[in-house]
């Protein structure tokens, strides 16, 4: 059983291959470069390194966002098209959930997040229970300050995980001085493509036709259009 995992939903580019519960290869870079140019060569390279052919794949797991709209679409399009062509299942996993796997042995609440600009974040609240990462508060696009108020009200320790930690660390520490747990090394703040495969194993297969990104936000034009329609309806 060979499973390919791929993640281009944020700055990190991650590709991993698992063979029967064993991670046999991983390529991860965390630099601001073009995912479109680098994703397929990375997949090709990794497959060559572990000496396998595309036909041997049994499943593809993809990080479906939130994150960069374009990055999410590159990964998802690649995953669903490859799965369709190879006639194998595809599974989309929330990019936040993948990050939450870094907190596997943390006994408390887990808050993975990505910066969404202007003081906002893409985030959700999770907790490990009986070996499963369970959702405690739904994923959303929210102002960090508002989100931290909700987390504080829970009066429990919260592990914060994010590649964008630098931008928000002060706000978090100010607002939850005794409850916030922040790992100091960036290695814990990055999504891991092998974790992505683990997460995908516990989720139902998606349709290669209907799997869609987890944007957590409407396109700006659509949001405005809906707003205008609502204003109109309210007279």
């Amino acid at each position, binding site marked *: 059983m060979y499973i390919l995992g791929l993640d281009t939903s944020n700055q990190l580019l991650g590709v991993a291959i698992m063979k029967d519960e064993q991670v046999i290869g991983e390529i991860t870079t965390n630099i601001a470069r073009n995912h479109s140019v680098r994703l*397929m*060569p990375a997949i*090709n390279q990794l497959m060559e390194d572990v000496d396998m052919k595309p036909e041997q794949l049994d499943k593809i797991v993809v990080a479906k966002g939130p994150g960069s*709209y374009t990055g999410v679409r590159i990964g998802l*399009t690649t995953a669903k098209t*490859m799965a369709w062509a190879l006639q194998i299942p595809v599974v989309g996993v929330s990019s936040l959930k993948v990050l939450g796997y870094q907190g596997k042995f943390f006994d408390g609440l887990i808050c993975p997040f990505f910066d969404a600009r202007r003081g906002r974040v893409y985030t959700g609240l999770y907790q490990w229970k009986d070996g499963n990462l369970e959702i405690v508060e739904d994923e959303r696009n929210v102002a960090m300050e508002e989100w931290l108020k909700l987390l504080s009200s829970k009066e429990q320790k919260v592990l914060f995980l994010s590649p964008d930690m630098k931008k928000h660390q002060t706000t978090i520490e100010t607002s939850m001085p005794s409850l916030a747990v922040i790992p100091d090394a960036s290695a814990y703040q990055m999504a891991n493509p092998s974790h992505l495969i683990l997460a995908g194993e516990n989720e139902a297969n998606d349709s290669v036709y209907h799997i869609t990104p987890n*944007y957590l936000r409407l*396109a700006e034009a659509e949001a405005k259009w809906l707003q205008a329609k609502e204003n109109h309806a309210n007279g």
Partner: protein
Amino acid sequence: MKNATYILGIESSCDETAVAIVKDGKEIIANVVASQIESHKRFGGVVPEIASRHHVEQITIVLQEAMEQSGLTWDEIDAIAVTQGPGLVGALLIGVSAAKALAFAKHKPLVPVHHIAGHIYANRLLEELQFPLLALVVSGGHTELVLMKEHGQFELIGQTRDDAAGEAYDKVARMLDMPYPGGPQIDLLAAQGEENLTFPRAWLEQDSFDFSFSGLKSAVINTIHNAQQRGETLKKADIAASFQASVVEVLTEKTFNAAEKYQVKQVLIAGGVAANKGLRTSLENKFAGTGIPLLIPPIKFCTDNAAMIAAAGTIAYQQGRRAGLDLNANPSLPLQ
């Protein structure tokens, strides 16, 4: 022994998600287009982010439909051709990512195609090309005269210096409060109006095959404003007819002059505006009796589709053009 060449083409440069399979660059085996136009109408134009979102939702559905329509097996497909540019970068990236994933999964060569080369090669789905030929490419994003001396060779001899012809149509349509897309509406309205307003024709320098439509657009605005100030209302149909007459005359004359100068054996019309009745009629009249054959494809071949990408991709494939798995979308890809 296998003689035929089957190319699968993917197009996603603007607001159509399209996949087609073409045999020997001439015969359509499958042709599927998922149009997003209904979704973009509410915004009054194509919104790039919305376009990208629709492409990612549609791509495998359209691929499946095309493969089913073709009745072919993967063994019979020789290569994957894809629009590399120009177009909306986020939209192009969906087609490019899908094409690379397919090429990798199915061990097929990957062939990059220029969108305009596609529009020109749409004509080969109807009639064999004769060189040298001249192509007038007119669409929402393009107004170009392209000279081709042989297959796969494109020489840009004229282009717009400001707005594309289709863009001017859409802008004038907006001034006349017509819904998006405006081009076809102006064409319809023009047929009911009279050419009784004088709008400028931008001929530019003598011998230049370049175009300019921004002056015409301003003239239309000014004429409407001046009439309003005098308390007069102009008939929309007359504005449309007069505007269209200016665009069509310049396009027709420049195309004719270029055809004579380069002694071409064929003149092809390509791109969405080729569907315009006024333009078709004017070109047909001008070229009638000249001995230069004029090819204007039916409307479904003028608008964006993937059969044209597969057709252009067939020649590129036969000429040995290949892209690696690092192929990127290029929103301003030059034609060469």
